[in-house]
């Protein structure tokens, strides 16, 4: 191989690698990027059953209910106009409480209940998930 050719080959290979990575990424993003939705947005435009997304809102007052198994809780996430029931099995974050902001990752089941895999709440009194801060859904926590 001539000197010029080798460098050209390498440059072309590099471009192919970068473009290939770009396509792979776009393909992956199409299937796997999880949207952020509030209950009223779900009411307006439902997300298909089983598709993962992040649900954000306030934990409704008096809605946290402990199921008999002791590890599963059921509660309502609400915003100004709508609410959505959520099921979660696990140890809730330390500052998870009623009237406080929450972001849950999971998907809707066939019964229209949001089954959460993970629950994110505030780390401390200053922190709150950015999506909530922006939509002013943190309640008292937004201070």
């Amino acid at each position, binding site marked *: 191989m001539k000197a010029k050719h080798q460098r050209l080959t390498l440059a072309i290979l590099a471009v192919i690698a970068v473009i290939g990575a770009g396509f*792979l990424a776009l393909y992956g993003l199409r299937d*796997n*990027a999880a*949207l952020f939705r509030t209950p009223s947005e779900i009411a307006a435009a439902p997300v298909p059953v089983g598709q993962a997304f992040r649900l954000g809102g306030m934990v409704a007052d008096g809605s946290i209910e402990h199921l008999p198994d*002791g*590890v599963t809780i059921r509660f309502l996430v609400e915003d100004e106009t709508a609410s959505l029931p959520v099921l979660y099995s696990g*140890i809730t974050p330390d500052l998870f409480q009623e009237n406080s902001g929450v972001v849950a990752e999971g998907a809707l089941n066939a019964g229209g209940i949001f089954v959460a895999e993970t629950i994110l709440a505030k780390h401390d009194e200053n922190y709150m998930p950015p999506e909530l801060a*922006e939509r002013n859904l943190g309640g008292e926590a937004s201070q």
Partner: protein
Amino acid sequence: MIAETGLAALWLAAALCALQLLFGIAVLRGNSDELSSAVRPVAVVQGLLTGISFLMLIWLFLRTDLSVELVALNSHSAKPWLYKFAGTWGNHEGSMLLWVAILAVAGGLVALFERRLNERTLIATLAAQAAIGLGFYAFLLFASNPFARLSPAAAEGQGLNPLLQDPGLAFHPPTLYLGYVGMSVAFSFAVGALVTRDVGAAFARAMRPWVLGSWIFLTLGITAGSYWAYYELGWGGWWFWDPVENASLMPWLAATALLHSVTVLATRDSLRAWTVMLAVVAFSMSMVGTFLVRSGILTSVHAFAVDPQRGTFILALLVLYIGGALALYGLRVGTVREGSQFEPVSREGALVANNLLFTAILGVVLIGTLYPLIVEAVTGEQLSVGPPYFNSTAGPLALLLVVVMAAGPLMRWRKDDWKKVVNRISLPILIASLVLAILMLAVSPIGILPTLGLTLAAGVGAASLAPLWGRKLRRTPLFTWGMVIAHLGVSVCMAGMAFESSFSEEVLVASRPGETHQVGPYTITFLGTEPVAGPNWTAIEARLSVNGDPEDLLRPQSRMFSSPPTETNEAAIRTAWNGQLYTVIGNGDGSGRWQLRLWWKPFVTWIWLGGVMIAFGGLLSLVGRVRRERRTAQREAYA
């Protein structure tokens, strides 16, 4: 006075930095050769002054001087001394000062110790280093002054985020910063060589120790960060594909590619333009990492302060440096002469494949990390990209990469033959096939990625030892040992990931005192809870007896910190040779039941063991290379 001394030292250092840049430019333009002897001393003194400034800040934190705003906002007199000390960089301003201090000290070290590089290239390197430094001095002095006074002084400090109150804080940020900033030195060498048209083997040999060194620190920093998140967050996971984790992974990916291509350049004088490009990319990724973590664009435990002005400042620096570097590269790459040739099937060819795959993985991770930020900026739509994306895109590429890693070291430089290469790795292929057969026949199905992961881990483990076959071990050079151990570390790490993700067991229960639970090979009896207290926290502590032995207890805690008021989970972990038992206590339900979460994670420790092996391999390589360089230098001196 301590704060004022620190601030004065910082201003002086900034002035010297400007001088270093001006002198450098003057010398390079060829109209003031007498200045060339001044550049090195200026760089050394600048490093000293910034070091002093940083020591002053540490002193302020150790004394908990509450008349300094930064200390009052981020420290507390009742904190243990280790966290006062490490708290120096557990905040935005302090961590930026640490960044600059490492940058300046690294510049000083280059000025003191680099003797073999062409003097003009060295001066251009130091000037580039000063150009990077100036932007960060400006950022510190105008937008993030760590020494600002508070008048009147606070009565008590506001404390440090409890998640950060852990010995990990003393270790994890400085190591990562050493890695990030070390990349800036490599980048400066690349700029210097481009400016003086000196891209070649000599430049690669000068740059290599810095690439290796910062790569070692990045490896250790990522490994430590992963373990820290694992035991501190109480979620049982070791990698979350969080943007902040990706911020440290991306420079590592670029640095690993650079590390391999700089070796080709130093030993074979090939891949010149490519290596310089990778140095630019590696530094850019360090800048992107610093931007993501320090600008407040991401809300996380790492983003100390959300301040739009600072975010804009760092973004401007990012654009300036990356843009400048790419422009210089575009202008000068034409002057880089072609290096030596090689055939596609050769050690060089394998290293090119390594580089291309690392670049592709980097691209995939970069896009996944930035995509939500860009989408939100453009459309306002909020979304998140998590493990499903990264595992399905970066995972297969990484598996391909380790196949190259198995074969590459067994190939000859310049030209080799496929059949012979396959011959040399026939035993590893056999071992991998055996493992695959066992997994398919004897074990219940565990998913494609873990199956391939375990198969390749076995094959690659065997192949990574192959360069030692038939060699006299005593006479094998240290850097060959380094490569073997690092590659073996990759296979150990991969085996740990595959084991953990496919054979972990998890139990989540609401338990009454006296009940027992089976998880993995352990029987756990919940004996009850009791309140405990530490220096600045109180906690509910569970007592879990292991395998029915009332003396053998695990004590996970749920801690309440008073300043700032926060709760954290402290997992209790039992390490055995074949894995870890990981226990967390949750809330009580008021009727005497407590939530317990128990995991058995087989061979999970291998993940971090592998990371440490990779770093140790790097260290052996570094020592081996530096020794050989010194010997060559002595021989040249006598000749």
